[in-house]
């Protein structure tokens, strides 16, 4: 990938530029925040039950909250890869032709099966979708889900991916700086919430990240 800074980073000048250390720290903070959101419900549920066993239904509601919060975060992460409405067949075919020229045979085949493009970078292995990307960190144990898109709703789906792919290739760290982090956690938590057709792409990214 090129070392040139992505011009869009000027629009988020207050954000520190992403690098591997900063990313690892963000991942840890994300996990701690999720735990901090969850633990109070677990404690409150336990204390209530200890004080008054008849409060078990209330405790169950609290436990449901403790379960739902991480689930909702993971769902938000998986949503970055959600497919957008199709354009007409002609433009879609043309756009797929261009995207196919930009990637290798394996990535082309994976895109045909899953709608996602796998791209190896310095920060890890990326899965690029139409309105976001998932970065599987080296080792394959943590995924970062990024919301990032091109501001043109008329574009065919493959062109939306090509926009993100070219920006990513121009400046990977800048790309991650511009994008909004939607989730960080174990890839399996994202995988469960992906449409089944997309799961092989995440599996491939995790495998490539090892």
């Amino acid at each position, binding site marked *: 990938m090129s070392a040139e800074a992505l011009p869009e980073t000027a629009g988020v000048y207050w954000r520190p530029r992403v690098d591997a250390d900063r990313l690892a720290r963000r991942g840890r903070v994300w996990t701690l925040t999720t735990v901090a959101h969850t633990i109070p419900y677990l404690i409150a549920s336990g204390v209530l039950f200890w004080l008054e066993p008849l409060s078990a239904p209330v405790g169950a509601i609290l436990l449901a909250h403790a379960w739902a919060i991480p689930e909702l975060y993971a769902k938000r992460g998986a949503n970055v890869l959600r497919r957008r409405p199709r354009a007409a067949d002609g433009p879609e075919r043309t756009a797929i032709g261009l995207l196919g*020229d*930009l990637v290798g045979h394996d990535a082309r085949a994976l895109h045909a099966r899953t709608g996602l493009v796998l791209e190896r970078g310095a920060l890890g292995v990326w899965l690029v979708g139409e309105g976001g990307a998932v970065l599987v960190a080296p080792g394959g144990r943590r995924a970062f889900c990024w*919301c990032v898109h091109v501001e043109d709703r008329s574009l065919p789906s493959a062109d939306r991916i090509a926009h993100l792919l070219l920006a990513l290739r121009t400046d990977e760290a800048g790309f991650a700086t511009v994008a909004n982090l939607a989730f960080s956690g174990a890839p399996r938590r994202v995988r469960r919430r992906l449409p089944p057709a997309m799961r092989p792409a995440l599996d491939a990214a995790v495998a490539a990240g090892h």
Partner: protein
Amino acid sequence: MARLIRMDGSGHTTLAEWTAADEQAVEAAVSAFRAQLDAGYYAVVTEGEGHARQVDELPMDAELVILRRPIAGG
């Protein structure tokens, strides 16, 4: 022959084609390139799989120059 293409609602549109030897074609390509940059597009030259470079001047030696819209988070 080198090409300048813009990703748009049609998939992509070829705005100019040129060879270094054809001065008129080069001039037309440079003119189209500048107009698109003024319209807010960014120009990218692919440099093999996994590599791309943003350019502010039309590189005469590039085979393919792609114009893209800005991206944003969210």
